[in-house]
């Protein structure tokens, strides 16, 4: 039996191996994803992002428990950064959910961002595709909300939760990081701490100035106790997506974005693979003061793709 068949039949070890193939992003990954693609689309995906220390992993653990109480089969992909210097990574999200992760209907996988440009943005959504095909009802993907790629990964989900805490800075910090514009739900965690009211008020006033069919609710949680308010807000967003084809529209937009980025990456790789002389020439022009970086880059691009 092929790995793809085993995954579709719910074999957990095959899924774990398949996820490693997907992370490696080689030819095996392409064959595997092609083989299971027609079986994806059933799972609801929730992205959770926010600054380090906001309490995302603990919140994910609480959410897993609530979704399990509703008898949903839950997959979790937790992304942590790789060291740019050694390539190593310390993946600690599982630590916060060891009790929830022990449930047979829960599958938790830790992914390291692996530094390579664009690597994570390809691997993480593809890992979710594989878990989707493996029959999970609900997928949670958790990323640290710093860096465009991490934010984009969370944004591939059907519902995006941005988690802030009173000590993670004011709403302007979150806006600068590009977090607010992707949020479907804003969650103020550690809401028992000082500053929660002020943060909530400033988020609400920013939302007042935004016109969109869905206004993200601002919910408060204290993940050590409960994530019920977040769970309810997610249910409300899911209901909204189920009306008037919003889900389909959103997913199609997501496919378009993922495809455009991927095609651009693949074309760039293919083209740049054979473009050594043009780039060498551009570097020489810049070092010798003949052209600016922008000027030399344009000239090289025109020489490569006339």
């Amino acid at each position, binding site marked *: 039996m092929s790995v793809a068949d085993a995954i579709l039949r719910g074999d*957990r*070890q095959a899924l*774990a*191996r398949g*996820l*490693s193939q997907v*992370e*490696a992003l080689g030819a095996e990954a392409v064959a595997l994803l092609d083989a299971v693609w027609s079986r994806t689309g059933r799972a609801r995906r929730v992205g959770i992002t926010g600054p380090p220390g906001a309490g995302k992993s603990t919140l994910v653990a609480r959410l897993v428990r609530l979704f399990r109480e509703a008898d949903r089969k839950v997959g979790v992909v937790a992304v942590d950064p*790789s*060291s740019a210097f*050694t*390539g*190593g*990574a*310390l*993946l*600690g999200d*599982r*630590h916060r959910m*060891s009790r929830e*992760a*022990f449930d047979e209907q829960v*599958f*938790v*996988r*830790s992914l*390291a961002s*692996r530094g390579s440009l664009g690597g994570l943005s390809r691997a993480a959504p593809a890992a979710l595709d594989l878990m989707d095909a493996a029959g999970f009802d609900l997928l949670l993907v958790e990323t640290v909300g710093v860096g465009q790629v991490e934010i984009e990964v969370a944004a591939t989900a059907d519902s995006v939760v941005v988690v802030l805490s009173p000590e993670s800075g004011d709403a302007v910090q979150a806006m600068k990081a590009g977090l607010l514009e992707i949020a479907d739900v804003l969650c103020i965690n550690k809401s028992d701490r000082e500053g929660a009211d002020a943060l909530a008020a400033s988020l609400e006033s920013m939302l007042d100035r935004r016109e969109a069919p869905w206004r993200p609710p601002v919910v408060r949680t204290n993940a050590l106790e409960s994530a019920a308010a977040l769970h309810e807000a997610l249910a409300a967003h899911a209901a909204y997506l189920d009306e008037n084809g919003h889900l389909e529209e959103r997913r199609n937009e997501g496919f378009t974005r993922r495809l455009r980025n991927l095609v651009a990456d693949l074309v760039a790789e293919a083209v740049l693979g054979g473009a050594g002389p043009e780039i060498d020439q551009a570097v020489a022009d810049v070092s010798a003061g003949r052209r600016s970086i922008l000027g030399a880059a344009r000239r090289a691009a025109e020489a490569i793709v006339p």
Partner: protein
Amino acid sequence: MKPIRVLIAKPGLDGHDRGAKVVAQALRDAGMEVIYTGLRQTPEMVVKAALEEDVDVVGLSLHSGAHMTLFPRVLQLLQEAGLGHVLLTGGGVIPEKERLALQEQGVGTLFGPGTPTSALAAYIEEEVARRRASG
């Protein structure tokens, strides 16, 4: 090449996780992807995590004196789960004689207090390379 993935766990009830954290960090600095699962893990939890994370190595840190029970139990569960290829290693306060007895049962080298973390990283690299080569 695929980075080496290591699960670091502390099974049992003792609460001394400093050693485990030092080791986790050292292996990360050696370029490995380290999944740290923390305290009070049962052997069943360790093996479920090892399977889902598709690790090459499981490292247990034990200071409770329960090593003669926990190492063989984890080894047995790994084999039952089809994870016979995974290297089971670890460290803690384990007398020489028992260390050798566990190694005879199929547990990898176990490291005592005072071992430089570089020796542990080198051992894991060598052993994983050997196991990957033999398929």
